[in-house]
């Protein structure tokens, strides 16, 4: 799967997570977040901010049960600030 970290998340994640095989047992967004909490605890803490958003295949997703497959692009977005 493709993981995309934007803004300050990108600086924390670096490039090491950009293209990783779907971890065994991960089937949902919640599963992916649990996996990150185990393997990348510092990054996972940063991702849990109240205003962090997740986009799956470039669509904002709020449901933790949203299914995830190996061909999906999952993006973690810090609070946005355009304009």
């Amino acid at each position, binding site marked *: 799967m493709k993981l995309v970290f*934007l803004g*300050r998340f990108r600086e924390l994640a670096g490039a090491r997570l950009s293209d990783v095989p779907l971890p065994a047992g991960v089937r949902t967004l919640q599963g992916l977040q649990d996996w990150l909490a185990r393997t990348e605890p510092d990054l996972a803490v940063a991702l849990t901010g109240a205003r962090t958003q997740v*986009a799956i295949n470039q669509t904002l997703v709020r449901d933790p049960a949203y299914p995830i497959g190996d061909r999906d692009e999952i993006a973690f977005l810090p*609070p*946005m*600030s*355009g*304009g």
Partner: protein
Amino acid sequence: MPNNIVKVRITEQAFDPALELSAFGAGRQDTGALANFVGYCRDMTAGRRVGELTIEQYPGFTEREITRLANQVSRELGTLDLMVVHRVGAIRPGEAIVLVAALAAHRNAAFEAVRLLMDYLKTDAPLWKKESGPDGVRWIEPSAHDHARRDQAKEKSGEKV
């Protein structure tokens, strides 16, 4: 609104707001009002000197989301043409960051469209800003005030954007 047009452009190149405006709505005779706003990179923010501002986008997603916000505002306020140009990448003080322009039959709709879209961009456009200067580097996140403005705007407009 058969002529309702929304144009959104994300650009890594510096742009000239006056030049963008000169093409916008050219030749139309059915519109009475053009309102627009340009946000510039300042050399000081909150007492810190700014050497450079870097804006990061999520390619594809960013343009699509801004287009969605602009379409929503255009429908709500009944603008004719609505345009957004947003700079990304490395930006120097004095350069334009964002241009929002709205054509409408009357001035109120044009003003409101620009203002509402600016409020939304501040909190809902997938863009991330980093300021660097002599005092170091920091990511900028929307203030509680920006969120309050946006929520207020949302409430006033009575629709969920």
